[in-house]
């Protein structure tokens, strides 16, 4: 049965999404935003790293421009997941808009090999895998939000989970990347802009500097083999 097959495929994502979703819900609660906010963000944004950064954007009352540009930079990789799925999702019919909307790093990883279990309808199968993943993420966030309200311990310092998420992802990419130039460009450009522009205004200059440097380095960096491996551990 296609439901059972899709559920089995989605199992590896379940633990990760529920744990990280819970972390997001707790963090959002500790920033003063409750379950409805967690629900809305996980339902409609549905992008892990972005939602963690979103908590700081919201609490820091960032401008609309900063928020939009930051979202573009953090989520730019989704362009490439979509590009590689264009032909696969071409004839998906009614579920196509949802399949595109729900194409996170993990769902992409599960579906990008193009394999469909024997006898399963491809569209139904892809829809259900996408939908189950989305459910885990929303469920985790809302659980975390409620858990955050009744935490039996002092949650001071829980905001470090976001730093830990990106540090783990940075190290993972560092270990699997062919060239360390992109990672170093990101670290050093941002550190420089932090010193030059201060902690309130350095994000947009950093993103411009990174794009300029990486464009200048084009041809000198061995093209990463990587769109696939990039995303795998990257988010949530």
């Amino acid at each position: 049965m296609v439901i059972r097959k899709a559920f089995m495929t989605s199992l590896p994502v379940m633990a990760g999404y529920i744990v990280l979703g819970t972390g997001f819900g707790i963090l959002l609660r500790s920033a003063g935003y409750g379950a409805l906010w967690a629900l809305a963000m996980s339902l409609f944004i549905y992008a892990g790293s972005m939602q963690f950064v979103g908590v700081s954007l919201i609490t820091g009352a960032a401008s609309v421009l900063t928020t939009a540009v930051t979202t573009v930079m953090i989520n730019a990789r989704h362009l490439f997941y979509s590009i590689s799925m264009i032909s696969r999702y071409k004839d998906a019919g009614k579920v196509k808009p949802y399949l595109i909307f729900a194409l996170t790093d993990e769902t992409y990883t599960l579906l990008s090999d193009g394999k469909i279990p024997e006898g399963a309808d491809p569209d139904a199968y892809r829809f259900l895998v996408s939908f189950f993943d989305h459910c885990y993420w929303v469920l985790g966030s809302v659980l975390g939000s409620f858990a955050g309200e009744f935490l039996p311990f002092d949650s001071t310092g829980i905001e470090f989970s976001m730093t830990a998420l990106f540090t783990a992802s940075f190290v993972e990419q560092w270990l699997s990347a062919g060239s360390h130039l992109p990672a170093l460009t990101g670290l050093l450009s941002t550190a420089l802009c932090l010193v030059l522009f201060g902690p309130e205004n350095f994000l947009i200059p950093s993103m411009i500097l990174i794009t300029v440097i990486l464009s200048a380095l084009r041809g000198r960096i061995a093209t990463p083999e990587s769109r696939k491996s990039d995303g795998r551990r990257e988010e949530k």
Partner: protein
Amino acid sequence: MSHAALLVAVMAAVTILLRFLPFLIFTNGRKTPSYILYLGGILPQAIVGMLVVYCLRETDLVSAPHGLPEILSVAAVAALQAWKRNSLLSILGGTVLYMLLVQLIF
């Protein structure tokens, strides 16, 4: 609409746009420009580096405890990740260490 709700809407709209854009532009006939493919392969690594610095932007190195909880916890996350290659374990371990450090020691 509160400013926070506006920002959530902006994040959602931009994310949705990014996911849909290729389906609207690069239909089967048109090839993706190689510059775009290059940036797509390479940007994620740089952006994660940027986000690490972004998360640590408020760390005060000058006055006590001189960013020591952050330095120790980031090192712990990195070491755990290099050792076990398990992101959830690294995140959990580093966060628990940081919470213990700021609550009990510093």
